């Protein structure tokens, strides 16, 4: 029987980590360890002697892992960013999904692929949720600014809400800018003058 794969997931968010671990364990008979962000990341990872390390592309602590790829690093076995041609476009797919993987050199692609497939699917899902959340937040922020700008216009010019908005929109169109940018400029200016 093959030796179980050891996978380390670098993830600070506990819920996300659990999701990834569950998905991996379901698909593959492997040992999974989760490590949060820490300054001694490379050493902690080395202690597990993993075959595969998974980390979010957007995680800035990823640069600490680069030390693992140097022969003189804390892992005795060289670790490489997964770039095997044999497994097709896995590396590209991984980057698009937002996961980077460090794989021990010489690990056969057919053993890596199932783990990576799961990781890619999982990270892509989380990334999409995060993007949607960011989008919602941004929309809320924009609406707040526009509301304040409308309020300022209504007070200053004695117009109603619809007229205030129409004025903002017209100015934005005339200047080739976004409504929210015009609103922001107005709020800033009012803050300075007020």
């Amino acid at each position, binding site marked *: 029987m093959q030796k179980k794969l050891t996978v380390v997931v670098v993830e600070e968010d506990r819920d996300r980590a659990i999701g990834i671990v569950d998905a991996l364990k379901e698909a593959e008979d492997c040992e999974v360890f989760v490590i949060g962000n820490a*300054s*001694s990341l490379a050493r902690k990872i080395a202690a597990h002697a993993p075959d595969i390390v998974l980390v979010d*592309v*957007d*995680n*800035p*602590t*990823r*640069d*600490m*892992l*680069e*030390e693992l*790829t*140097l*022969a*003189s690093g804390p892992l005795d076995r060289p*670790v*490489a*960013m997964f*770039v095997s041609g044999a497994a097709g476009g896995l*590396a*590209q797919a991984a*980057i*698009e999904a937002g996961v*980077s993987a*460090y794989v021990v050199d010489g690990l056969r692609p057919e053993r890596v692929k199932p783990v990576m497939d799961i990781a890619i699917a999982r990270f892509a899902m989380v990334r999409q949720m995060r993007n949607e959340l960011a989008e919602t937040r941004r929309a809320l922020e924009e609406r707040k600014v526009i509301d304040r700008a409308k309020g300022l216009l209504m007070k200053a010019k004695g117009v109603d809400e619809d007229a205030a908005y129409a004025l903002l929109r017209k100015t934005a169109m005339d200047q080739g800018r976004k409504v929210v940018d015009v609103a922001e400029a107005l709020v800033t200016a009012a803050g300075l003058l007020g």
Partner: protein
Amino acid sequence: MKTVTLSAAYMPLVDAAPLIVAQEMGFAETEGIALDLIAAPSWSSLRDMLAFGRVDAAHMLSPIPIAMAMQLGGVATPLSAVSVMSVNGNVIGVGKALEQELREQGFGFDFADPFAAAEALSKTRSRTLTFGVPFPFSMHVELLRYWFGATKLRDADIVIRTVPPPLMASALAAGDVDAFCVGEPWGSVAVEQGVGALLLPGCSIWSFAPEKVLATRTDWADMEPDLLGRLMRSVWRAGRWLAEPARRGTASELLSRKNYLDVPAEVIDRALTGQLTISSRGDQRDVPRFVEFHDGAASFPWRSQAKWIAHRLAQFHGSPDGFDADVVSQVFRSDLYRRHLASTASDLPGASEKVEGTIRTEMPVASARGGLTLLPDTFFDRRVFDPSQGE
């Protein structure tokens, strides 16, 4: 001319200015391109984005493409450094504990003399000194190692550890690192947060160190000569624009925006003017040419600079089979620079290599138009690097 959008990745640092200015001040537009600028969360992500084709170009640490050509690190896609985006611009600093110890010794924090700083550091009580740097392949690491090797710190117990620049201040505060070498504005941010003091500017160790390069995939550079030329010219014009002292205020404001560095303009201004606040007590030091984008053919990718980096990397990491510094140094594309910038006002040097470390004062040199003056490029210990012989 139809506008073509090129995507370019950068790390939020003062020396990403040429890319940001190229887009914001219309230099890209003049060349019929639009830059889709993407802030990368880490140097490894930035490298992967470029290597795997997510972006066309990147603001990159000068040793990265050379290390990749030497098969160091995980990824080996051939990259080209088509121009140098910035020269110098790093600071070396210490955390509160070391600052305190150095002050007790009577050390004056002159922010100029690497020998004196090393002497003082070597006399501190500390056990192991841990230095934080942004990436294993960086000018920061090379400057530190060069400094240690030529001073009393040669035999000190020193560890160099990777810490992402935006996290450097908190790593200092937490005591994970005792000292650091980092690109601005992150050294000044550490001072602002009261967690450290600045010891030396990078240029006190090597006065003309190629810090960041404009990098593309080599196959892209070969397949898209027209787009590459437009990109290179717009970034070069942005560098020239940045070289005018009167524009520093505007540049600081641009960079400080939320979507770029998201750091107060006043803090960014320190690197651009060379007037640095080195401690939370407010001590100021002036460093002329703290970071250089244009003057003295700053953007010219000298093969000899690449060779110096290659030699230093080989010394530390061992050289790969068949290592040839002449071949590796061709990653610095002085050939493409000459081809694509001939049509600008850029004055091209006559040679593509020089003996590094021999220029002590501003020196006129042979050039295409005869008006080129090179700036001092000395190492602090006055050693020279002859690219035909190695060190």
